[in-house]
């Protein structure tokens, strides 16, 4: 087994090393955090994340579903967080455009998340 250069905190399950550079910025555990990341990021950053992650989405879901949603390892949880972030970011690319996303961000800063979904 090769030793990976990545920090343990960025480690993903085997087979997903290509996504590890995304972990520090984009693997966020809460919906409120994912929304904040969305409105604090640039259009270029979001497009890069989207383009890198999209081809791996089905692989991510298949990998996570090898175990249970409850009690997943931190590595699997990070991978799932990337997939959930992808949903939030897809809004800015598949629904909004660069102009409407600026308006969305203005209004979204006034939205408060009161409680999170209990399951990851």
């Amino acid at each position: 087994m090769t030793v990976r250069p990545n920090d343990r905190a960025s480690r993903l399950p085997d087979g997903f090393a290509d996504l590890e550079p995304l972990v520090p910025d984009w693997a966020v555990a809460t919906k409120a955090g994912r929304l904040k990341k969305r409105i604090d990021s640039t259009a270029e950053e979001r497009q890069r994340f989207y383009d890198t992650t999209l081809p791996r989405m089905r692989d991510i879901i298949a990998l996570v579903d090898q175990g249970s949603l409850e009690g997943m390892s931190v590595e699997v949880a990070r991978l799932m967080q990337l997939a959930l972030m992808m949903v939030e970011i897809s809004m800015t690319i598949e629904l909004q455009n660069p102009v409407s996303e600026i308006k969305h961000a203005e209004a979204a800063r006034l939205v408060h998340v009161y409680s999170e979904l209990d399951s990851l």
Partner: protein
Amino acid sequence: MTVVTEISAADVEKLGTGPIPNKIYWDPNWFSAERDRVFRRVWLCVARTVDVASPGNYIVKDIETCRASVIIARGRDGQLRAFHNVCSHRNMRVCLDKKGSTARFTCRYHGFSYDLDGQLRSVPDEEYFFGLDKGANGLTPVALETCGTFIFINLDPKPKQQLKEFLGELYDRLESFPIGDWASSFSFGGEAPLNWKCVMDNFQESYHFAFTHARTVVDRATGSANVFGHSLSFEFFGPHRVLTNWGNLDHKCAPVEQLAAEYGGGFGQSAILVGLKDSDSAAKRSPNLSSYAYSLFPNVQIVVAPSYMHLIQFIPLDAETTHWVVTMYFPKAKSAGERLSQEYTMAIAKDVITEDMSVFPHIQDGMMCGAKEFVNFHRNESLCRHLAMMIQAYTEETTRGQTEVGR
């Protein structure tokens, strides 16, 4: 092409067609009457039983309209009870958390402690009081009733109607909602500088979809077969009302949207709910049925489809300001794909409502500047017209019993 909304001839006649005075959306005197004759008197849907599932669980719901804060707690005996969140000592709010699990509520100010059944259990340095009667100084009860998994409270110390009477024919429908175990919830909200009825109206008409939501729901909720996204049906039950939304089966999903639809059994599937007690009609059997939207008088909307439900509260702070709270409920996700699909439902709902928020600040001034005296409702805004009628009926009601209103 267009869809012609199903609505009974009797309802069309009752609703009328004329303009509606805009005063009901800004006059502070009108608002005071709404607060006193509606919000302080009728049953208010505030939560679901799954929010307080186990003994010791509690939630705190604020009805800012009446400056009320209500604790809803499940006792050790399994019973749900509601209390004003006010200490008998110096009237401080007893519970400052919004939800949790506890054996007692202890006031942070001087340590008065109350049991889950509202009884005052302990008073620090009690002997120094002047014969304080603990038995008479429990938390003040608030009337609570449930229908299916929905919790209603009534701030009237002696409600004039039972919940079943207030809901009328809707009682059986709400009770039959096949969502009993949908306990996963996500909640978000904000403050809108707009009258509560206008905020609610935004959620009870699809006329604005093609414009306000030109980037999000437009192709899901309108299409060549229904250019302006007419609702499939409107029904009215006393002061309450229900619409069914039309979904565009020809909608082409974008890549992540497609994944969410595939894994969640979500988009493009008819929303016909198995087990729901409902009227049988062409609209309710339509493959284009995408969701049901129940507007419960005065200030709650429940939107339900096979894979999600939202409960939206429109809580007036004053005549011109509304605190809106959306709570989305889901069945517990059994797979990563299902969880991803739920994330998509949450994300798109938030985007759509954020778009609504961009129009909200530009309405109240328009109504209050004196340029116009009336608003003009479209046929697809029949539910907005009904809310205006019902609020007028309740607000002007002074001598007759409330049970006659809206029947």
